């Protein structure tokens, strides 16, 4: 039997529609936010993998040259969805028992001077005297498929490894080694 809508029913329907209209954007935001968060975390995982792979490759070499380091940078594109790391720094830090030194460094962005003070050495293991570490620092720009406001996120990951076959990976850059202040090493390394 047809029941005419009373003013009370119409008000209730209106309230339900209003509630739905309010909830719908929230649901959509949940969906978009969840996907964007997953994408961002996935990008961080990829940056971690890329840095670990790069430092693993560096730890297996005895000497490098500029073309080899460019190839290593190219390798990151196979691990970062076809995009090379936005910025990458590879370097070797040695310790002679008295001072830490940056023996050589290579960066994708060679503009400007290399600032030792900007190195992120958190988590760097202690280097035994007379040995060295190779370091890879990868900066991966996150490019979201949705929520373009997350465009600016960049993941920066640093990984360390001890050379396997030599005490120090050689790279003749023609530049003198850079001193790494011990205070900086102590302040930034674990323990």
């Amino acid at each position, binding site marked *: 039997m047809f029941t005419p809508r009373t003013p009370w029913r119409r008000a209730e329907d209106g309230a339900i529609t209003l509630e739905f209209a309010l909830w719908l954007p929230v649901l*959509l935001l949940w969906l978009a936010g*969840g996907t964007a968060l997953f994408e961002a975390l996935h990008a961080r995982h990829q940056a971690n993998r890329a840095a670990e792979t790069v430092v693993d490759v560096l730890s297996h*070499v005895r000497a*490098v040259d500029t073309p080899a380091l460019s190839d290593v940078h190219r390798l990151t594109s196979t691990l970062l969805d076809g995009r090379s790391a936005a910025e990458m720094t590879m370097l070797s830090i040695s310790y002679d028992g008295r001072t830490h030194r940056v023996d050589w460094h290579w960066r994708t962005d060679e503009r400007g001077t290399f600032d030792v003070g900007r190195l992120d050495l958190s988590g760097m293991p202690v280097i035994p005297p007379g040995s060295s570490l190779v370091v890879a620092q990868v900066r991966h720009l996150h490019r979201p498929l949705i929520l373009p406001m997350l465009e600016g996120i960049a993941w920066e990951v640093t990984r360390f490894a001890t050379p396997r076959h030599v005490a120090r990976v050689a790279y003749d850059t023609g530049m003198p080694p850079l001193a790494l202040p011990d205070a900086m090493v102590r302040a930034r390394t674990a323990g």
Partner: protein
Amino acid sequence: MSTEFVLVAVFLFGLLGVMVEGGIHMARSAGFERSLEMVVRDIRVGIVSPDEATARLCDAPFMPPSCQRDLVLEVEPFTADLAMGPRHATQCDRARRRHRARGILFDDPLGPALAQGALPPIRVVSACLAITPMVPLAGVLAGLAPQPGGQIALVARRAFVAEGI
């Protein structure tokens, strides 16, 4: 009221379906990446055959029953001009057909490989699987697979130094 519900319900349930599909894809993707890491570790020390590697990748959570048939697993030497492996679902399908035609899934991961200049021989392992989502177009809506087929591509890639044993 019921007309409104009928109009909105399709959209609402579609949205819920996309959320569920997206969640499953994320869980599947994380498991797939983890499985590939384990498989690469075994490939690296030479204790896994291509069939075992495929089976282990397909043991990841939420993998479809057709995984073992459709999965493409490639191990190839890294060269400076290495073409990018498959990235999208249609490319996974194409790679699968190519592999079936050639009957090759693995090269010899620990076999002799030419070092690239000063670099040691590096192998790249790619795993690719095209999955048809439970909710049609869910992949497209969630931005996971921008191809006309609406399939979702599950792609994971690793590289390692082939040291030999």
